[in-house]
């Protein structure tokens, strides 16, 4: 009787509600990441994933070999360009949807969300059907006589760029949309009534106030882009080498686990550093604009 009461009081403790989740996060997230950090200092081996003993040579190799540095800088540059293109395409769409007063608003919202309903492999396949040498776009261009021979639209940086922008564009639009919806249209109206042109009221009122949305969207797209694996392989056809491809290749094909782990962590560190600097710069830009 007494033990059952004690039993009940233990389960009465609300900590039991979150304990399973925390245990899972410790066992399947924290410990694996620690293991990966340890792995990156292991001695490489040719017969097993790793050999006993610790070394710094994996990091030395990754940070001194021009090939790996080149892949890293390519990855970051590519992520940067994709993010800018997503912003340029996504901002007008977000602004339009935030300010529209049509009964089709819900439908347009679904239009932005619907690409998220298909997995990334499926969306890549859609682009393959369109962009391949014997794909729909080449076919249309040939039949209308605009080109004589095939134009290579994929298996190069162009194809990968198109795929990345397409897949991650909703992640740019949604935060900016939420942000602009929170800006009172009366502010614009006031600027207009005081004589500012439409362009001027946009650049002086809406754009500065939507900087937080831009910040969330760009960080999200940048992080997703530089860790993308499927798109560079399917639309780049192993001709576009970026960090995630390289890391998975080292781990699944070459079985160089310590080196693969070191490369992955270097990329992670570079990302964190870039985002940290970016947030600092944005904070300076936003000072005095956004409360």
């Amino acid at each position: 009787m007494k033990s059952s009461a004690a039993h009940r009081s233990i389960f009465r403790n609300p900590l039991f509600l979150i304990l399973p989740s925390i245990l899972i996060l410790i066992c399947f997230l924290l410990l694996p990441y620690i293991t990966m950090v340890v792995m990156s200092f292991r001695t490489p081996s040719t017969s097993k994933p790793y050999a006993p003993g610790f070394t710094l040579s994996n990091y030395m190799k990754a940070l001194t070999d021009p090939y790996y540095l080149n892949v890293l800088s390519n990855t970051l540059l590519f992520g940067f360009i994709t993010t800018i293109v997503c912003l340029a395409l996504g901002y007008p769409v977000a602004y339009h949807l935030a300010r529209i007063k049509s009964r089709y608003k819900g439908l347009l919202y679904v239009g932005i969300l619907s690409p998220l309903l298909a997995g990334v492999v499926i969306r890549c396949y859609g682009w393959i059907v369109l962009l391949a040498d014997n794909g729909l776009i080449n076919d249309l261009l040939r039949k209308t006589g605009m080109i004589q021979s095939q134009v290579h639209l994929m298996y190069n940086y162009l194809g990968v760029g198109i795929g990345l922008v397409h897949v991650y564009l909703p992640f740019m639009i949604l935060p900016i949309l939420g942000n602009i919806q929170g800006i009172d249209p009366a502010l614009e109206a006031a600027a207009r009534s005081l004589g500012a042109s439409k362009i001027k009221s946009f650049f002086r009122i809406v754009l500065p106030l939507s900087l937080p949305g831009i910040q969330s969207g760009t960080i999200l797209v940048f992080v997703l882009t530089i860790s993308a694996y499927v798109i560079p392989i399917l639309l780049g056809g192993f001709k576009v080498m970026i960090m995630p491809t390289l890391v998975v290749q080292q781990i699944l094909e070459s079985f160089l686990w310590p080196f693969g782990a070191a490369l992955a962590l270097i990329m992670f560190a570079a990302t964190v550093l870039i985002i940290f600097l970016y947030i600092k710069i944005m904070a300076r830009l936003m000072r005095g604009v956004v409360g």
Partner: protein
Amino acid sequence: MKATKIRFDRFLYLFFVSLVYIFLLTPLVIVVIAAFNSGKYLAFPPEGFSLKWFKNFFQSQPFMDALKVSLKLGVLTMICVTILGTTAALYVVRHAKKWKNFLRLTMISPLLLPAILTGIALLVFYYIIGIGTRTFLGLLMGHVLITLPYAFLNVYSSLYNFNRSLEEAARSLGASQLKTFFRITLPLIKPGVISGAMIAFIVSFDQFPISLLLKGVGRTTLPCQLFDYILWDFDPTAAAVSTVSIAITLGVVLLTEKLVGLDSLRW
């Protein structure tokens, strides 16, 4: 003169916006068209209607096995994270005091880390502790980890504006804590719980990087099988697989809409 210029600017702006919508939707529409097109390559004009690519898909053992694995994995993941996410959200909203922000961040941390990196970390970890890198349990735990934040966030936001006086009324009328939860709390947070469960299923069903690193032999998921297939062959069987996959996801979304309405959805 000025009026025409403004009208022209407006036209350009709307034209640009519509182009972006077309850009977003075209690949999906194309996949569905290609699935029903009889030709091996989608050409213009289309060559005719055919269901043979669907037949190919349903007769392909690897694809059907992968579909079964994906559905099983999605449902199990959904059940696990709905229970875990709901209870965790209850704790963070109601009981956590100064640790509230820290716990919230901890719960969504799998979302903040690149999935491919988490997959590699899990692969290395499973090997080291010796539970095997290719077990179904390992794959399931990877999916639970990745989808937990979605279930948590959806319940969290529906608990946030929760009026507790109804619970207090039930308690003061003599209902036990458990009874109050199932008769009062759960029905009120149902929209968040169901949307969270649905998103967890969709994210698991479409998940790729974690599955790529943790899948076992003969235990590949549908996105992985599709990836392997179109790596070498672009034939429209892949379009049929994609169309069925989109239809399943769409079915889940429509079910959510019917049960609780899509307003409660949090991506």
